[in-house]
């Protein structure tokens, strides 16, 4: 009511910045194997991530603030992933998409890193092999919720998205 008459409302600066940030998360698509296909579907018309302000997939780490690691990370590739993560400006968040990324998955092998949290701070883990696009969307919403709560990236408790029944 007051809003209509006075044309202003009061809030905290952190809240308004967080609100802007959470609705414009630009993903860095770290699509390094089959999960990337579902990540593309996540950006496509059916799941339509643009409803959440994240349709602008940036292939430059300088313009992204959410890294979606979608695929098996080998020891050789881990250095590249870390380098790209380091090039992203703060604040930045990480979603570990799928079984391989979260834990090595079915690759119990000498060449595959058994979970990217061995070298990256992860905010949300999304289960599935690969996860369905809507499950990844749920992961994105959890990141948004973290930002809305004012949490710093890579801290507090991790969030684990279960697979659909």
């Amino acid at each position, binding site marked *: 009511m007051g809003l209509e008459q006075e044309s202003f409302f009061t809030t905290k600066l952190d809240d308004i910045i967080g609100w802007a940030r959470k609705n414009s998360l630009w993903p860095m698509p770290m699509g390094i194997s089959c999960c990337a296909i579902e990540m593309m579907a996540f950006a496509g018309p059916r799941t339509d991530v643009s409803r959440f302000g994240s349709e602008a997939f940036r292939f430059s780490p300088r313009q992204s603030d959410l890294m979606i690691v979608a695929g098996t990370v080998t020891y*050789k590739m881990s250095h590249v*992933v870390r380098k790209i993560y380091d090039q992203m400006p703060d604040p930045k968040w990480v979603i570990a998409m799928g079984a391989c990324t979260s834990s090595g998955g079915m690759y119990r092998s000498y*060449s595959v890193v058994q979970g990217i949290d061995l*070298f990256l*701070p992860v905010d949300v883990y999304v289960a599935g092999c690969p996860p369905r696009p809507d499950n990844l969307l749920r992961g994105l919403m959890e990141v948004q919720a973290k930002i809305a709560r004012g949490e710093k990236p890579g801290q507090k408790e991790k969030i684990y998205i279960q697979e659909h029944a």
Partner: protein
Amino acid sequence: MPDLKELVVGKLRDRFADEFESSNEYRGELTVIVKKSAIRSVCQFLRDDAELRFDSLRDVCGVDYYRPEDRFEVVYNLYSIPQNFRLRIKVRVDESDLHVDSVTPVFSTADWEERETYDMYGIIFDGHPDLRRIYMPEDFEHFPLRKDFPLMGIPGSLALPRK
């Protein structure tokens, strides 16, 4: 048309009397074992022979049998497009002497396949133009497809980025 299998084995026996070791056929697949010293000239002969024309090398790989003698084998799968005929050639490699002549001068496609075999088994291809590791990092010191290499690797042998 003469039986190609007999033709191939007969030609190889005639031409490489000392280096030919054995041949066998299993489920229609012909395999020939030759001495490793002859592998490049065998490939050259099969490629250039006007009747056979094995013009395509489809794969090169290694096998570790983990046995006291002739521990490794290198397997070459050849294909003759004109004859629509496949041939598998094997050479045995003992652990004391891991050198095999490269066939890259004959089939340039062997380049990366021999690098892979070197990377995974440590077999050294003499005469290869650029024998480096192809999958594993260049400073890696082990050969992961050998039977005595542990499945989950050797701790500390592959570096992770600092956290």
